[in-house]
């Protein structure tokens, strides 16, 4: 994780300019007047000057020194300065020469210090994360033991293969296995939050999307029944697009949210169907009746930790991580999750929410 560019701006004593042209004050030096009144904010694309380590010196069209400081793949631009040894440009305003004088060696030193601080921050974050989720490992070990015991019971059942024996298991045992499966998927979601790269772990394998959603429908039957919410399935698919294991987390998030936010007495409809042709795909839609997401929040609901006001009003508990995880999984597979309110519901506060995606 390259935290340096993010923190370098905050830790900089010098003024900086972001890639979108926004100026930021340094904690030691503010932006000079030439820069605040500059229309273009296109500081660095001019005469190339000498480089020292990972610090490159440029001169902007107004004769001011600009430093581009590289932190691995990203960089921070320090603008509106005067480097006495490297900047002989006569257009550089004399007030900047006095107030914003800096030597390239000082910038190089600042970069080194920043890296050390950021390294410490990264280590602290890593330690904190590890401490917070190390207990997860013990829970995983315990869940593994539940699996082994359940499998031992299945082995005693009639059937020639384990799959057959599992098929012959009593409803209670099947239900136990499904619940442990749900717990296991939830734990993998916690791992995704701690390590987003884990959505891409493993090989992509042909995944029975219909079966995954069918399993989720069964798993959520009980909590849905408690809320007097029905779950209806529609369509069928036998296409198995290549997908990572993490696709199960996406299915879980969509079903979990549907049950969580669906209003009492209403139905959740899960539609799965194949799209044939050259780009064969499976299309999934999960529809539920509850608070609608206003248009201005429809992108934000996929951000980490974001919960819409309507969601908070409807359900007090929630971390705002579900749709963020779903988005990460979708990105790993190269598709997007779409949200829409059913057409007749647009403009209302409550109505039918539809989350959908198409996987090829």
């Amino acid at each position: 994780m390259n935290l340096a560019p993010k923190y370098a701006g905050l830790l900089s004593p010098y003024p900086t300019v972001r890639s979108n042209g926004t100026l930021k004050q340094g904690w030691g030096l503010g932006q000079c007047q030439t820069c605040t009144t500059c229309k273009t904010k296109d500081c660095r694309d001019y005469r190339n000057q000498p480089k020292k380590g990972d610090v490159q010196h440029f001169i902007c069209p107004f004769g001011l020194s600009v430093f581009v400081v590289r932190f691995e793949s990203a960089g921070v631009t320090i603008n509106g300065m005067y480097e006495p040894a490297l900047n002989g440009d006569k257009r550089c305003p004399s007030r900047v020469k006095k107030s914003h004088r800096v030597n390239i060696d000082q910038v190089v030193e600042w970069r080194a210090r920043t890296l050390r601080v950021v390294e410490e921050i990264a280590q602290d974050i890593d330690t904190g994360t590890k401490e917070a989720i190390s207990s997860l490992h013990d829970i995983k070990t315990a869940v593994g033991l539940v699996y082994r015991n359940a499998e031992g019971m299945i082995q005693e059942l009639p059937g020639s293969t384990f799959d057959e024996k599992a098929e012959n298991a009593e409803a209670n045992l099947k239900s136990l296995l499904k619940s442990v499966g749900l717990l296991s998927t939830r734990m993998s979601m916690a791992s995704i939050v701690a390590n987003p790269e884990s959505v891409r772990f493993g090989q992509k394998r042909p995944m029975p999307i219909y079966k995954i959603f069918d399993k989720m429908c069964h798993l959520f039957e009980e909590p849905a029944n408690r809320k007097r919410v029905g779950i209806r399935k529609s369509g069928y698919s036998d296409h198995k697009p290549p997908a990572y294991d993490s696709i199960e987390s996406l299915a879980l998030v969509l079903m979990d949210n549907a049950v969580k936010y669906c209003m009492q007495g209403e139905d959740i409809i899960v539609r799965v169907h194949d799209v044939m042709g050259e780009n064969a795909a499976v299309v999934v839609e999960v529809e539920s009746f509850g608070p609608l997401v206003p248009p201005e929040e429809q992108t934000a609901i996929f951000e980490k930790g974001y919960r819409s006001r309507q969601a908070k009003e409807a359900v007090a508990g929630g971390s705002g991580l579900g749709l963020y995880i779903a988005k990460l999984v979708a990105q790993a597979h190269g598709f997007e999750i779409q949200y829409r309110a059913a057409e007749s519901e647009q403009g209302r506060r409550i109505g039918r929410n539809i989350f959908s995606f198409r996987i090829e």
Partner: protein
Amino acid sequence: MPIFRRNRKLSDIRAQPPLATLRKVVRILVVDDDPNSFPIKTLQSEGYNIEHWPKVTNVNRLESGDFDIIILDIVGVASEWSAGDGLGILEHLKKRNPSQIVIAFSGHTFDLSKTSFWKLADETLPKPVDALKCKQVVDNLIETTFTIQHYWHGIVQLLRGTGVHEKKIEQLEDQVASAITKGTQYNYAEGFSRFFKAGELLVTLVSIGEKINQLSAFLK
């Protein structure tokens, strides 16, 4: 009549032994200090040939290709052999023999510092796992990776790494493909001795070649 014959390619050999046959012959090793984390008994009763080591006790056996699939935990299995524990072993094995099939098996999916463990392996099994999932992952690997083409690719990687000329590699591939088509076993020790007189690379190459012979025997 054409003067030049096109070299035979192993990619032209499409036939693959049936999964049911391969399941019984594939030698699987589970390296994990927790004996309950992998459904060893269940898979053994399904006919899979599985051995369990709580720790890495013999690196030579791992290096020599004794096992077709190694299911490797990351923590507490090889700290005596490598500072990187399971990751160190995985890196060593992949460097020595890139075609060694390894499944990363751990509960440490959340740990950013261990991401390379998951990336380097051929497949992953994040703990906890149930027997059906394990069967699915192992069967998929047997079908897609325990193949003549996979092992040939490993041989090519090692030969290229030591600077063997592409022409020589193509000739060798032609001879191997020809032997498979005729239903005979190619003598890898003799074939590779043209490039290397002795050494651990020759041993590794021959052990990979033997896997191709093992697989091609089922095609007869």
